[in-house]
């Protein structure tokens, strides 16, 4: 299991109970986690939890020349793919009305989603334009096929996991928390982004 977890982390996977339940359970054991941390420290990496603690992923422990190049490349990748992913989740929220889609472990039923999109021409157009935003996804196909291709892409990118292939039910993985962290960073740092004057509610308030 140790080897499997190390390889998954090195491949850039997000390990959570949805995406890799066995590996997640392994890392939840403090002794195992310490062993993994010791190994990763030797190769200049460390394991961290996502902001809401639902998953693990790998980060560089230093910021040298090599890391700088890798981080730049990673950021370029985010720049290319972030907006279509955000647009997709926003479409799901609008169609289903369920804001908790953005919570780890939430289920998305592709059939239900497609059924609702089918009933509204503006949503159909939105899905079509969303398809064209994803690179290497042809929007010149049926709506259902297009939606399936988008789901497949998000599964490949690690945001979703196909939990039930027969009923086409997908589950949101802990990578969603990574996405929310990126948005938070952009929101805080991009001066050109004027998302209203209203700030999100205080995060330091009582949670329980």
């Amino acid at each position, binding site marked *: 299991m140790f080897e499997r977890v190390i390889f998954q982390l090195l491949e850039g996977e997000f390990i959570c109970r949805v995406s890799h339940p066995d590996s997640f359970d392994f890392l939840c054991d403090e002794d195992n986690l310490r062993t993994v941390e010791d190994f990763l420290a030797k190769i200049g990496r460390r394991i961290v939890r996502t902001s809401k603690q639902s998953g693990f*992923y790998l980060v*560089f422990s230093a910021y040298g020349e090599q890391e700088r190049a890798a981080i730049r490349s990673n950021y370029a*990748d985010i720049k290319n793919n972030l907006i279509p992913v955000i*647009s997709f989740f*926003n479409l799901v929220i609008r169609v289903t009305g369920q804001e*908790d889609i953005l919570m780890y472990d939430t289920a998305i039923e592709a059939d239900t989603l497609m059924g609702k999109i089918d009933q509204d021409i503006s949503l159909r157009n939105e899905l079509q334009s969303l398809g064209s935003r994803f690179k290497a996804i042809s929007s010149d196909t049926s709506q259902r096929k297009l939606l399936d291709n988008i789901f497949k892409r998000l599964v490949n990118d690690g945001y979703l996991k196909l939990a039930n292939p027969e009923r086409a039910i997908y589950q949101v993985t802990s990578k969603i928390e990574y996405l929310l962290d990126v948005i938070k*960073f952009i929101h805080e740092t991009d001066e050109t982004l*004027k*998302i209203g004057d209203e700030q999100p509610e205080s995060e330091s308030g009582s949670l329980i």
Partner: protein
Amino acid sequence: MSKLSNDLLSNALNAIAKHQDLIHEVYIKGRYIKNGSKTDRDAYELHQNRIFVADGRDSYRLSSFITKFFDEVTQKQRLFELLGDNAGAQANRIFQLLDEYAKAVFAGRIEEADHVSAQFHDACADLSDTFSSGISKLLNLAETNFAVVNSIDAKTRQNEHYLRQARRFSDALESLDRFGIEQQFEAGYCDFEPLEIPYNALISDRKAEWHTEISRLLHFFETYLYQLRSIAPDVKRFRQFANFLQQNPGYELPELEETHHRPLWLMRAAGISPVAYSDVRDVSAFEYLREIATQLPTRKDVVVRERASGRIERSTNKPTETLRLQPHHVALDRFAKAAFRSSTPLSALSWKREHFPDIGVPDEVWLLLVIHSRNSHRKEFSRLRYQNVERRGESQISRNLYVRDVMVHGS
């Protein structure tokens, strides 16, 4: 039960059976509005039997007791239901009835004690029902994550409300434990047997199960509430950003600057693709490898079948087969012809040595070919006469015959 009560119950049950479609419709739609039709009379009959209640001058609603029963049956979720509020009061009623029963027994009022005992039984059933149905509903809400509402804010408010309801159940259970009814039964200062049996069956035996379920519910609601509250600012930010992107489709993310503070997500090691091969000699890896092997899809054998019907076979596609005689076959044929033409018997060995010395067939094999050719049905051989030149072997025991040559001539 008195005759009057019997009649009322009978009438109510008949009315429910007779007007079930109307009751069903009103449960779905919420109310019935008088419209001057024959159905108004049915609605009035239901109203007389307290199945419908007046909702203004010209409309009826289903009685809240029946609505609640149907909600239970259909597991319908309603907002801010009062599930555990009654539990505490119902538990207190049990304590009061127990006290009342003891007083009646000590005072020797047997009939009153019997009456209180029956009421105690009902009170236990009510409390048991409140716990069972309430917990079942709370579990349903927990499993569906308050599916009846959509936004994070609304879910948070629902969660807060139902967390309070779960705590009420917990408090009621705690008061049952604290009051120690079982201990009072055991103390035996009074004949509690008529109360002990229903109490044990309906409450005492199920308390452990309720404790477990309520602990689970409290844990779930508290955890989920924490998650909802912690995700709320992110959701708000996400929706604002998504709306901004809709209004500004040309927006691009800012370039990364060295001066930026580097949050953890930015330091992510996005991944390499290491390749490793398992050591199949390692016994400890066997189970893991077998698990992988069972998950491998079977190889698909694709058989391409060309359309047969309506196809013209092209003979040119067929490979050309060339028949070619072996040298010893040629030699044998020629020998047969020469022997037939010869006026004297022809020695097979001499002829071979003279005409085909290098066909690569040893003399013994050649003689064997010649001997066997006499069994051939071909005309060239069937018209020949064969005479073996033999010698007897020197061994006294075997007395083998050795063929030294074959003399062949035409018949």
